[in-house]
């Protein structure tokens, strides 16, 4: 289909790596540029501070679509504030895992924004710690510990929630890996920054079937991983709970940390979806303060667009039966396989 693009992909990736590596090398030998360090801290802070806002926007939009008033887009911040001022009640059966899980989950979500393009489209000093798979590993580590904590308290709902979450993860994880493989084959590199550059610079790559299939496959994954409709229920009843079933025993600041971590996970997945796959534009190229602020504002706009799409799905879909969970994920798997085949052909 594209005769020339493979060559240009290669060149793109190469020139990018070439241009990036001196900066990285310089960052290691010479004292790191203070601006880059600040930008990296800024990336983490953006995720930390804006994550509840996205959650609030989605909930508010949903309420408005259903013709209700809605709590306002800042409600998650108020919830977190309230929870941080409550006391902690710990079940007698809980071990140290119960205390460790929220902290580790929160830390994992603080680590991933270092690795992905949140504000800038060039790698920052610590961005070469891990590639796409590394980011996926850390994201999964957080939910793995919450699964353990759900089992740890030996409450019935925690066990059910954990087993369901593991089942969904078993179904979703192969597709996630395949999507990552597809991204890697598309850009011939495992760094999210290279994918971003390729999609911005090359229209043929952006509209190639390989990329479009990847977008569709990742969108289904996005719905599954952020507790959205075809699989997760929107009514908060214990019988339907999957992700929330695991954290029913938590209270006070620990619960706040977990809620914040799940909002951040959603924010990170949206970031990957927007900045790496579907809307790769609008990132800070030079890394000035104004550019970073503009990129943060752009991020909110992009996420609002994706949130509208998610709200449409949530409103129009009904929850699937337990034994039909694999259907959307099989479709996602299929799309990822087709995309990999597309990358082989282009």
């Amino acid at each position, binding site marked *: *289909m594209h005769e020339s693009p493979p060559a240009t992909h290669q060149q793109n990736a190469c020139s990018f790596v070439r241009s990036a590596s001196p900066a990285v090398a310089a960052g290691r030998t010479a004292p790191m540029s203070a601006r880059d360090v600040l930008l990296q801290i800024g990336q983490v802070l953006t995720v930390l501070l804006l994550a509840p806002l996205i959650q609030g926007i989605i909930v508010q939009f949903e309420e408005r679509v259903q013709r209700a008033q809605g709590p306002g887009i800042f409600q998650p911040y108020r919830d977190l504030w309230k929870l941080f001022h409550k006391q902690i009640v710990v079940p007698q059966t809980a071990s140290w895992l119960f205390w460790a899980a929220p902290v580790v989950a929160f830390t994992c979500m603080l680590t991933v924004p270092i690795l992905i393009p949140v504000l800038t489209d060039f790698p920052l000093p610590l961005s070469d710690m891990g590639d796409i798979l590394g980011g996926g590993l850390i994201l999964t580590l957080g939910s793995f510990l919450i699964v353990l904590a759900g089992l740890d308290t030996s409450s019935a709902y925690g066990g059910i929630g954990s087993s369901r979450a593991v089942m969904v993860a078993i179904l979703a994880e192969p597709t996630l890996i395949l999507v990552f493989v597809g991204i890697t084959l598309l850009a011939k590199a495992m760094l999210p920054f290279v994918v971003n550059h390729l999609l911005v610079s090359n229209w043929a790559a952006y*509209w190639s*079937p390989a990329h479009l299939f990847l977008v569709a496959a990742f969108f289904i994954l996005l719905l599954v991983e952020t507790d959205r409709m075809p699989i997760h229920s929107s009514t908060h009843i214990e019988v339907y709970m999957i992700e929330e079933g695991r954290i029913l025993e938590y209270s006070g600041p620990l619960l706040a940390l977990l809620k914040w971590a799940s909002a951040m996970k959603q924010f990170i997945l949206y970031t990957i979806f927007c900045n790496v796959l579907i809307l790769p534009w609008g990132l800070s190229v030079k890394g000035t303060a104004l550019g970073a602020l503009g990129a943060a504002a752009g991020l909110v706009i992009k996420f609002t667009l994706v949130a509208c799409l998610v709200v449409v799905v949530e409103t129009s879909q009904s929850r699937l039966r337990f034994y039909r969970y694999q*259907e959307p994920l099989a479709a996602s798997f*299929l799309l990822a*396989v087709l995309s990999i*085949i597309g990358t*082989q052909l282009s």
Partner: protein
Amino acid sequence: MLIQHLGPIASSLFSLLAIASLLLSFVMLGSRWLKNYLYAFATESWVIAALSATIGYYGNYPELYLIAILTLLFRGLLLPYLIWRIIRRLEVDREIHEILQPSSSLVIGALFVMFALAVSYRVATAYHLELTVAVLALTVMLSMKLIGFLMLAVRHEAISQILGLLVLENGIFLGSQILVPGMPLLIELVILFDLLIIVACFGVLVGYLLTHVGTTSTLDLKRLVG
């Protein structure tokens, strides 16, 4: 050969249409309701008609316009209408006893596409067709055939089987349109009438099954009748 001197826009248009029809056959594979099969099949036929017209435009084959119109009329409108009439008579809305769940058949279909890709690479190298469009057309053709066979094998409503047969035929037609676009008009016409006769025969067969056996599911047709 047409595909050896194609512009980039033409070849990406061809790939887009070919992949769209592959995706539609996956929609057929993944759905449970007979109506959805039918809609996906009709859409697939329209996509293939668009492909014929595009090839006719880029390759200067005026007779392909006629074939595109005939495809649209026969495969896109007449055959779906006839099958829709059979479905309405049947009062069967969906596959009730599935041998293979839709999700499993989707995954198996994905494996078939990989197999088709491997085979078409071999075929393309053997015939010196290392062009992307040629490999893509071969892959889509082979995988639509395999998906058609899969639908014939794992579905047992009579309607699903005729639709599986038609998907198989659509795959061959699509591949031949891209690979050998100058195929004589007469052969295409013969194929179209063949399809019409197949569907008409199926209508008669379904009527026979309904009156004599009381079901159209092949699961119930186990007893040999002398």
